[in-house]
């Protein structure tokens, strides 16, 4: 179906995938420490990394649960809304991988920002598959090991504020947001959402301010001029040959 990759090309894709996996995976240490500091047990922390496996959603979940178990519904809602993009990645990746049966289940669980970005960045179909699976598995294994280390170390070291872990979480959200701020529209939506969330915060239970602020995204839907960004992920340089763009047949942007 597709031509085999040369050994050099294979090595390059694997190197790229592993460097992304290491950079992302090691950050699981912060998640583990932060989750335990938010009041979750080590087992619950590990369960999030194994089952939920989506960094942004996991941080949002423990961040909201930190204010107390009453934050449950808001934590679920925020984590789920943040996960919507993974479904969109799946649409693109499914056509690229052409998987069936149980492999489809594994591929779905490994569908995150990083695996999608590395996979779809490859010009050849074989390299795209290799990139997706290597990055996905690499991040999954390293993220889970790092989570355990962080949960154990974090538990042993006392008040996380002393180590600036609360600021680390805020900075992590900044870094996740940064690549998406490619247009003035995106910056305007981000600024509006942040202001609304902070203004609502004193008057609503934990998690609700974030949900209220998420409504600014609806503005982009009803107000055509508000948002012209391409569909996520924005970092894809080009589609792999053999896959069609999400915008329909023969659309070139």
């Amino acid at each position: 179906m597709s031509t085999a990759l040369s050994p050099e090309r294979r090595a390059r894709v694997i190197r790229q995938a592993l460097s992304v996996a290491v950079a992302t995976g090691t950050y699981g240490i912060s998640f583990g420490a932060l989750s335990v500091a938010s009041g979750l047990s080590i087992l619950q922390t590990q369960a999030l990394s194994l089952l939920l496996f989506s960094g942004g959603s996991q941080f949002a979940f423990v961040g909201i649960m930190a204010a107390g178990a009453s934050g449950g519904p808001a934590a679920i809602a925020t984590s789920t809304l943040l996960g919507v993009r993974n479904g969109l990645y799946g649409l693109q990746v499914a056509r690229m991988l052409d998987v069936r049966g149980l492999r489809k289940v594994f591929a779905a669980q490994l569908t995150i920002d990083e695996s999608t970005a590395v996979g779809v960045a490859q010009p050849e179909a074989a390299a795209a598959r290799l990139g997706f699976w290597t990055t996905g598995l690499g991040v999954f294994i390293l993220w889970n090991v790092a989570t355990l280390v962080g949960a154990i170390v974090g538990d042993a070291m006392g008040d996380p504020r002393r180590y600036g872990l609360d600021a680390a979480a805020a900075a992590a959200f900044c870094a996740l947001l940064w690549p998406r701020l490619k247009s003035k529209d995106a910056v305007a939506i981000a600024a509006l959402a942040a202001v609304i969330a902070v203004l609502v915060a004193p008057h609503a239970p934990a998690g609700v301010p974030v949900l209220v602020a998420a409504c600014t995204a609806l503005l982009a839907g009803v107000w055509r001029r508000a948002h012209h960004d391409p569909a996520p992920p924005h970092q894809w340089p080009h589609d792999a040959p053999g896959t069609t763009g999400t915008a329909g047949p023969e659309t070139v942007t």
Partner: protein
Amino acid sequence: MSTWTALLIASALAFVLKFLGYVVPASWLDGERTTRITSALPIALLAALVGVQTLTSAHGTVTLDSRAGAVGVALVALLLRAPFIVVVVLAALVAAGLRLLGFP
């Protein structure tokens, strides 16, 4: 709702969303308006989380403390194209340092 219940529901929904991408025909989500909303949603959510995590206390009151300084440094690092892990560690170090100096 117990933490375990919330955790398992959130995990199940996360997987359902991922799996939907593999079974739903791509044409269902091709609408221009849908695309604009789904593209803007992560931006709004992440920005709201940055705002809340940087400027509010556990009880929701608006506070200006070491986190603001740390996030400011993180933004400068991002402008200078620093990698993810550097941005995060730098922010932690700045916040820890400011608190060591006696800032809240």
